[in-house]
């Protein structure tokens, strides 16, 4: 058995992001720079950039070159280790996770984590990046198809309708309309979701997250040093990561990788799913959020829909989920997504989330991603549990 844990060894002392959207006027490096400066500004007692001893950059599709030096160009931080991380939709959260390892070990006192993606410049979006000429990888399998396959299987097994799944999109767009950093700031109804054109049946347009540019940054330090920077640090309590594939089996109504990653994180933190007060979870598609309620232990298999119908996961509920509007409304600039979720939870736990501040005085927060790999989804999941000091 492992001898060490991350629990309570790392503090988040600053967090910032930029408004997500179609940012044709901002370059990859400008987006990083703005998110970084916002994170620096958020450190209550100030932080000199010279105190940053290492940095991690999470990004999938960098425009030119692919080393950590992109972060140095954007921030002026040269001469220190900068590691680039890529792990599908868990890219940003895995960058954060690896930074936490180094700080927990005491290699560095202060580290920077940046997640970024520029997705609008090439116009085509991820469907154009689909693996087309692959004989058995699945010719014509797109991102929406990966998740649509899970939707069909879930609807069939548990007798759930498209109308019920639409409640996820309705909730998240309602939150996103209030969230200043969201790409899409409009509300939608169940009828809007059902009437929208199909992308990959059973998923329609409003079941899918948009194609979005964005960046987010967090500053972390050794827990003992947190009080030098703020009186309201947020501590890392648990972290988990796992891979899986449906080619090993299963009926496509669950993402087992999330179950493994969540179990690792809950065990490390010494908490249970019931203890979580607020969560930012991976809703790249409406069905993803519904299945993830169950994989994260918030509801038994097939019963996630009750959390929506009973209002539990609404902004005013007892366990608000995706107060930021989630990926469906906020957008999903892949490398930025996990880091932006941590930014949002940092603000929620400190009571600084403005119009989307949850009302249940949160002590414990959970962050979650599920991503693709090897022409399938459910391939990689990352989970973090954060707590108020």
């Amino acid at each position, binding site marked *: 058995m492992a001898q060490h844990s991350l629990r309570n060894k790392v503090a988040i002392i600053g967090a910032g992001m930029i408004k997500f959207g179609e940012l044709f006027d901002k370059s990859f490096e400008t987006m990083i720079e703005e998110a970084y400066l916002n994170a620096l500004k958020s450190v209550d007692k100030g932080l000199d950039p010279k105190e940053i001893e290492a940095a991690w950059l999470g990004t999938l599709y960098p425009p030119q070159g692919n080393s950590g030096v992109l972060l140095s160009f954007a921030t002026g931080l040269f001469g220190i280790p900068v590691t680039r991380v890529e792990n599908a939709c868990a890219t940003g959260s895995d960058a954060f996770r690896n930074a936490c390892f180094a700080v927990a070990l005491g290699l560095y006192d202060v580290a920077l984590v940046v997640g970024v993606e520029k997705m609008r410049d090439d116009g085509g979006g991820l*469907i*154009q990046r*689909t693996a*087309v*000429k*692959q*004989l*058995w*990888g*699945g*010719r*014509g*399998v*797109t991102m*929406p*198809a990966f998740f*649509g*396959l*899970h*939707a*069909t*299987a879930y609807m*069939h*097994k548990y007798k759930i309708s498209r109308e019920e799944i639409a409640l996820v999109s309705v909730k998240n767009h309602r939150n996103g309309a209030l969230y200043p950093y969201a790409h899409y700031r409009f509300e939608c109804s169940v009828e809007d979701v059902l009437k929208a*054109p*199909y*992308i*990959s*049946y*059973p*998923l329609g347009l409003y079941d899918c997250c948009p194609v979005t540019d964005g960046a987010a940054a967090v500053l972390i330090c050794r827990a003992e040093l947190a009080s030098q920077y703020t009186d309201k640090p947020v501590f890392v309590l648990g972290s988990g990561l796992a891979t899986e*594939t*449906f*080619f*090993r*089996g299963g*009926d*496509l109504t669950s993402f087992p990788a999330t179950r493994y990653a969540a179990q690792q994180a809950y065990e490390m933190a010494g908490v249970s799913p019931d203890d979580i007060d607020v969560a930012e979870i991976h809703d790249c598609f409406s069905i993803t959020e519904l299945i993830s309620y169950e994989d994260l232990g918030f509801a038994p298999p097939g019963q996630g829909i009750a959390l929506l119908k009973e209002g539990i996961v609404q902004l005013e509920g007892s366990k608000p989920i995706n107060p930021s509007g989630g990926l469906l409304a906020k957008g999903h600039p892949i490398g930025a997504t996990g880091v932006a979720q941590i930014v949002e939870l940092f603000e929620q736990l400190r009571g600084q989330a403005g119009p989307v501040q949850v009302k249940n005085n949160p002590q414990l927060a959970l962050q979650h991603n599920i991503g693709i790999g090897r*022409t399938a989804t459910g391939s990689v999941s990352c989970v973090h549990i954060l707590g108020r000091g």
Partner: protein
Amino acid sequence: MHTPPVWRIARENARLIGYRCRRCGFVEFPEPRKTCKRCRAPAEFEEISMGTRGKIVSFVVQHRLPEGFETPLPLAVIDLENGARVYGQIVECKPEELTVGLEVEADFRVFYDDAGLRVYSYKFHPVRG
């Protein structure tokens, strides 16, 4: 069958050949392996015919695809009779006929055109009684 990724699995693709773990029965496809995904360990495999019949585990109907595809395109995950799980396009089937559990059968078809050369592989159609 000219690009390296297609050439490497030409035999498996042409005859629906898989590789079965002698310990746990997991079927690896299309490449032979020496480590098993289910045993999570090095393992011995034997070559098997995967069979041509299978059942739909789940499906979608694709409405948005890159140029060169005809839509709506039914696409499924299929468990073949001898234990392999594969993606497959479904032909000769109206989208509304698709269901989880539907029995399908493999047919060798033209798949796509690569730099003027035709690439063949399997597509599936419902088993007609």
